[in-house]
């Protein structure tokens, strides 16, 4: 593991957490609305997976701000999207749950649990068809691992030997329901075992995630077919900002806060890579600046007008309008 990569991952994790808190703050003021799903506590997975999976397409869920930024999408464009502004990555059409940027091969933010997995399968087919270097990574939760769309995808990706990396972010909850109450076991990778190679990784250990996803990426790019990676992690906040998360105990949350991904990586940077506390402060400061700038940018950006409501309904303009 290269120092510069570890540092970059750390910086993005710090940025991500600050970004999420800022989003929450501006949700409270009413500047952001709709459903807002925060990724706090899960930054190691979101950042390191994106950094490791450096050539290929990414399909993910509605909890994707940090992933989008780690893929290279500007924090400004993400924040502006949350604000519903025309400078947002989806021009304010999609909001927090729908950040699309094909120029970064990022198809993020499907709000139908499991619904994006068959799309990722199809994209992997297209990559294989075109003999592209690209593989595809699809991230989904423990809750999604109970859906028909997920199961069909395991079967099809395996049959077609597709270059597809299934990444299960197991944070143990689907809204208020603990995974072990709606599946026969905690480890969702067991479901993939009949179909493909499976791997597990500590989702709160950024460097481990990085190594694991690198290995998985190499595996799929060699034509071995799909692979399934399961990462255990935990979200600190409620499912969305409107969820008080009363279904979990304070103790459980505490246990996970002791495994905080940012704190963990911070120690590594200090101990193994000898970053000084002023180096770390600098990272913190820059992250805060970036977030503040993103908020200002979002606030000052214009909204798309209602006169363009029909724009982008179709790509080909038809002479007959309904």
């Amino acid at each position, binding site marked *: 593991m290269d120092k510069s990569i570890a540092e970059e991952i750390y910086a993005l994790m710090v940025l991500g957490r600050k970004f999420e808190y800022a989003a929450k703050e501006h949700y409270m003021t009413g500047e952001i609305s709709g459903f807002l799903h925060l990724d706090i506590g899960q930054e190691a997975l979101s950042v390191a997976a994106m950094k490791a999976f450096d050539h290929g397409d990414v399909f993910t869920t509605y909890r994707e701000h940090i992933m989008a930024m780690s893929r290279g999408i500007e924090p400004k464009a993400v924040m502006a999207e949350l604000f*519903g502004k025309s400078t947002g990555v989806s021009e304010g059409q999609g909001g927090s749950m729908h950040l699309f940027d094909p120029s970064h091969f990022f198809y993020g933010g499907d709000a139908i649990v499991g619904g994006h997995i068959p799309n990722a399968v199809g994209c992997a087919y297209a990559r294989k068809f075109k003999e592209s270097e690209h593989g595809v990574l699809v991230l989904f939760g423990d809750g999604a691992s*109970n859906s028909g769309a997920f199961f069909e995808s395991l079967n099809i990706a395996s049959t077609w030997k597709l270059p597809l990396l299934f990444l299960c972010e197991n944070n143990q909850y*689907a*809204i208020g329901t603990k995974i072990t109450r709606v599946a026969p076991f905690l480890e969702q990778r067991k479901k993939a075992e009949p179909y493909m190679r499976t791997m597990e990784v500590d989702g709160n250990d950024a460097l481990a995630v990085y190594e694991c996803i690198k290995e998985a990426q190499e595996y799929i790019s060699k034509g071995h077919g799909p692979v399934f990676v399961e990462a255990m992690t935990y979200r600190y906040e409620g499912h969305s900002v409107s969820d008080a998360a009363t279904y979990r105990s304070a103790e459980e949350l505490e246990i996970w806060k002791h495994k905080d991904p940012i704190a963990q990586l911070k120690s590594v940077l200090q101990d193994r890579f000898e970053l000084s506390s002023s180096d770390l402060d600098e990272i913190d400061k820059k992250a805060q600046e970036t977030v503040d700038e993103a908020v200002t940018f979002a606030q000052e950006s214009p909204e*798309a007008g209602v006169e363009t*409501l029909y724009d982008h309904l179709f790509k080909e303009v038809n002479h007959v309008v309904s």
Partner: protein
Amino acid sequence: MLYREALNRAIDECMAVDSTVVMLGEDVGLYGGSYRVSEGLVAKYGEKCLIDTPIAELSIVGNAVGMAIGGLRPIAEIMTANFALLAFDQIINHMSKYHYMSAGKITLPMVVRFPQGVSKQLAAQHSESYEQMLAAVPGLRVFAVSDVNYAYHALKKAILMDDPVVFIEHELLYNKKGDVDMNADLDPFKARIVKEGQDVTIVTYLKMVDDVMEMLPELEEQTGKSYEVIDLQSLNPIDYDTLKNSLEKTGRLVMVEEDHYMGGYGAQIVSWAAEKMFYALDAAPLRIAGKNVPIPYNRKRELASIPTPETIKEEIKAWGAENGL
């Protein structure tokens, strides 16, 4: 009590009188339902009757069909209309057809409930309405009740009757206040005349009833006309009699719905009126509906894509002026 409390009360009472009533869905048990409709029920009736399911909508409805075959009275909750699409095979190919295909041998006393419609900036995958699809399916009964009291009675009826029912709610109605009269003898299959009037019949349902009533005083004042407002309540079957009586009196029809104009549910009402009430109509009818776009996230655009009290009023005024009202 609140609309969601009225629904809770209806389920509670049904479970109390009939031990075969169960409810299943995502987070309906320990969590109390994402819109709190089943709050507190698991404490009273246990996890056997309030069944937390995996995120698998096809199975939620498919399992409910099987539970009904096995002698239970299931209520399947789908969190949001858009997710019900995953269960359309079970709703349309199974739930609606087994009774008829088996020549009555299989009976499915079951309810599928979900909220729909535009709430606030939930974007395109969480804001749609599907009554136009489901009310068109033979073998289903479809309720979409706006009034709190009727909601309570309609849901009880839906749970305790032997036919499969789709019970459509609206996300913005859950916190609506209203009085519930438990002893009232109401027929949820009949349309409700919300307000009597002489000059124009406004037909609507679900949340649009409130939007219509909100702008009505101003509309009446500004136009000097009197409007009769009818809340359909039951979308299949349609209480055509009530519509007929009203149109015979007013000769003018306005249909208001939140869903997209193209192929929206209201087309059935207006086309029926054109066919069966043509000679009673004094003017072209008017359909007010949402724009033909997926619902945008941005608030202004979101609001521009559906009728609001203000746009309903303005559209009716413009139509009235054009049609010699």
